[in-house]
């Protein structure tokens, strides 16, 4: 007969059953069936699928499409009356021009100018009898205005040259340098992916914990002869699978539709995402341990994930942010995930770039899990 212990831990020591072989088998089957139960539940939960997979993807598609065309501003230009400069252009020159400009002919100068003001056209072009070409443009979009000026200057210059029948003395062969940091999709993909993974793991862990506590599933688990380790590891498996699915979908969509170019060590993003998932789960675990209701867990998670995503450069680069904000972002695991994911995905970063980040993320996860463990409650009351 055992004696009643007088120690009163808040959380009973989580421990597996006796260590015979059958017991080991049981634990394995419990691990798989618990993982399966969670995966099925998630798969059938439309809202969860939406927020974990589709919502981030919508962002990627949206940002990806918006920024896709921005490197070649296609301008709408209204031509009033005859403009010899354009009208005389034929063949290759003309088709090159049509690639960047849409030229609409009109005769109403005043009306067209008004349209330019309103933004219906980006610019208006006229040519006086003296041959002077006039370009009137709005500077609402500075990039486009600059590009427009450049195009006209070069057209005019070329026309002048042709008029003098002289070979140009100097030719500038300008080519854009493939500066990866400038191509939006190259930083959007790791950034939004990081945000998606953080959302999935934080919310997943927090809501599951609170929901299980509230519906007494947690009590069921506690009454079953399975160890806390089994429960935790199957939750980790589910979160990892989710994160890898997100990563896979993101990379496929970004490379096939938005021209993302992966660099050699891109696969390093997988262990990075795995370590980050553990870090994010620990945040969710903490939120779920503190929160009593699902609404509270939701709120706490949101309050953590959203600012963290902004500060970590998930949506736009933080290079221009004030120094103190950049310092704040340095305590956030997402910052390191985004940074390292960018490095290995698009800047040719290697193992040496990724390893310290992974270590840091794991350390973060360990510390937060420790705190969450202390605050963990099996029951509501």
């Amino acid at each position: 007969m055992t004696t009643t212990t007088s120690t009163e831990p808040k959380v009973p020591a989580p421990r597996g059953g006796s260590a015979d072989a059958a017991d080991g088998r049981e634990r394995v089957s419990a691990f798989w069936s618990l993982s399966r139960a969670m995966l099925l539940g998630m798969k059938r939960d439309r809202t969860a699928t939406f927020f974990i997979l589709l919502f981030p993807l919508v962002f990627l598609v949206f940002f990806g499409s918006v920024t896709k065309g921005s490197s070649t501003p296609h301008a709408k230009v209204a031509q009033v009356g005859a403009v010899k400069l354009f009208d005389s252009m034929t063949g290759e020159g003309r088709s090159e021009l049509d690639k960047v400009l849409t030229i609409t002919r009109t005769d109403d100068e005043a009306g067209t100018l008004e349209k330019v003001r309103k933004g219906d056209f980006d610019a208006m072009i006229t040519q006086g009898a003296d041959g002077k070409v006039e370009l009137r443009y709005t500077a609402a979009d500075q990039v486009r205005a600059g590009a427009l000026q450049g195009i006209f200057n070069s057209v005019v210059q070329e026309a002048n040259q042709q008029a003098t029948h002289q070979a140009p003395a100097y030719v500038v062969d300008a080519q854009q340098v493939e500066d990866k940091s400038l191509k939006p999709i190259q930083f959007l993909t790791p950034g939004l992916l990081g945000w998606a993974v953080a959302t999935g793991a934080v919310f997943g862990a927090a809501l599951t914990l609170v929901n299980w506590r509230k519906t007494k599933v947690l009590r069921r688990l506690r009454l079953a002869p399975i160890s806390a380790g089994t429960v935790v590891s199957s939750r980790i498996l589910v979160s990892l699978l989710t994160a890898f699915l997100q990563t896979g979908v993101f990379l496929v969509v970004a490379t096939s539709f938005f021209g993302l170019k992966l660099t050699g060590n891109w696969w390093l993003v997988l262990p990075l995402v795995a370590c980050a998932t553990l870090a994010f789960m620990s945040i969710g675990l903490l939120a779920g341990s503190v929160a009593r209701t699902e609404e509270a867990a939701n709120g706490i998670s949101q309050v953590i994930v959203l600012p963290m995503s902004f500060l970590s450069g998930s949506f736009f680069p933080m290079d221009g942010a004030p120094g103190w904000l950049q310092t704040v972002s340095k305590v956030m695991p997402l910052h390191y995930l985004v940074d390292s994911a960018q490095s290995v995905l698009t800047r040719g970063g290697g193992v040496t770039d990724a390893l310290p980040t992974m270590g840091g993320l794991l350390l973060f996860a360990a510390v937060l899990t420790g705190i969450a463990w202390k605050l963990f409650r099996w029951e509501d009351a």
Partner: protein
Amino acid sequence: MTAAISADGIRQRYGDVQAVDGVSLTVEAGEFYGILGPNGAGKTTTMEILEGVREPDEGRVELLGMAPWPRNPKLLPRIGVQFQASAFFRKLTARETIRTFASFYGVGPKRADAMLERVGLADKAETLTEQMSGGQAQRLSIACALAHDPELVFLDEPTTGLDPQARRNLWDLLRDINDEGRTVVLTTHYLDEAEVLCDRVSIMDHGRILHTGAPAALIREIDDTVRISVASGQLPVERARELLAAAGADVATLEDDTVSLSVSTRLPAPVLSVLAEQNALRGLEVRGATLEDVFLQLTGREFRA
């Protein structure tokens, strides 16, 4: 052989509420034991303490010779628990649910499915638990508690919300598992249920056990009381009181719950003649004492299920 359960002086307080106020009980192995009491009596809290999911403020519990608190993994496979509210994973079907829980105990899918069948849910196997009716969820919850063949079973109001047919079926099931030698502890609001199923019942109110005994013995203690009731609305309760007093009837209780006018008495004849004179015999029922009367006598108030 040690008792299946022995509890001594358990107390539990929630803020101002003394939910359990010094409960001691012993349940023998193989016994069918009932805890009977109205809402808020402390039945669920007592069960939770016995099961080892709640640590009592005071008192000592032993299940099968072991302390259930702190969590004791050796004990867990030997007990089965059904909670008052069903606790299922989200978005799983009945079959997936019971198979998942069964797997925690190393019980295979075949046995899990058989259990599902045994509680009459075979045709609901592919239904999501969220879409099951209250009674179906209740039965699934019971099946989950029984799938791993526990020797000690705790059921918290297992028949609440079941239709009469399902209730009878569940009674049969519970009797069967008890006949197989398992110890069953159940709480209920239904006196007839306790009367039919339990070897012994404890009547509980305000966190205390008022009386414990075999239902028949409890009833025998007050078996000279007869309960007479007629349909309500034929005779105002005040008028009835006057007439019965005038007729010299010995009335233990008299009340009208708007459905029926009920009188408990040791001498039915004068009461019946008063009712007959007033032509108030519609819906007449005369029955001997039940646990309800026991409860009434113990607590001084009507049992409210």
